[in-house]
């Protein structure tokens, strides 16, 4: 099992978990629960985008996949979060 602990996958996991907990704190402590907070939202969504991208690249092994798959999945992350932030700021 020690090889698992030293594996790159575990490093990615540790980062993802840390960042998940961090974003939870940012959300709960950073902004009053009843108010719009563009900073909190932007940070939280960007973190989510990075997490999604990392899971796709490393866990789903897209990093070693053909170009079309890399483009499609990265395009999904980029397109989705652009739209999400776009609609958010448009409505704020």
């Amino acid at each position, binding site marked *: 099992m020690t*090889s*698992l602990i030293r*594996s*790159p*996958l*575990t490093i*990615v*996991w540790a980062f*993802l*978990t840390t960042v*998940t*907990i961090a*974003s*939870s704190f*940012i*959300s*709960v402590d950073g*902004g009053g*629960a*009843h*108010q*719009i*907070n563009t900073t*909190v*939202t932007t940070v*939280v*969504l960007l*973190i*989510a985008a990075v*997490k*999604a991208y990392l*899971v*796709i690249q*490393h*866990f*789903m*092994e897209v990093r*070693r*996949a*053909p*170009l079309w*798959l890399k483009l*499609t*999945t990265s395009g*999904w992350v980029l*397109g*989705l979060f652009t*739209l*999400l932030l776009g*609609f*958010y700021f*448009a*409505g*704020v």
Partner: protein
Amino acid sequence: MTDVAEGSAAGVDESVVDARGHVPGESSMWFFVIGDLLIFAVYFVGYMYFRSQHQDLFLQSQARLNVDIGAVNTVMLLTSSLFVASGTAAARAGNSANALRAWAIAFAFGAAFPLLKLFEWIPEISAGLTPGKNLFFMYYFVMTGMHLCHVALGLVIMCFVIRNLKTSAQPKISLVETGATYWHMVDVLWLVLFALLYLMR
């Protein structure tokens, strides 16, 4: 650079696989994964659009959610995915015993998700927070409900993979990879859901 967690020297040389641009698992599963990601993306964007029309309602409603369980569930899925990924690499390297163990642990973490969900939903529903309460809760229950169905299906697929690892001398790598791909997709979807429903303001 090799991602093989078990580092078995007698196993598959991952760098050869690198060069060919390997699509893990059946391509029909990738068709499903990409399509599902797109379908959920429409839901996500729809949610954000309607949220912008009802800011206060959504904010007030969000305050009633249990962020702690949401965060724990996120970590459950991430950990489960870690073991799926390492188990898959082990299977490819020919290390069935380690692969089986990793997938079994992954299943345990994955099964924690629906259990925790119950602890989240039941108090909410008892408190009158139902899908019909308002648009936020409708989105919340519909999206997490659809996601939960995906988790359930993923757990079933995991059972098939575990059975294959346990009973076959030579595990069906394409089955293992296909199951892994599906499960990671479930994880990715939740990462977005967690941010949209629980965290954003």
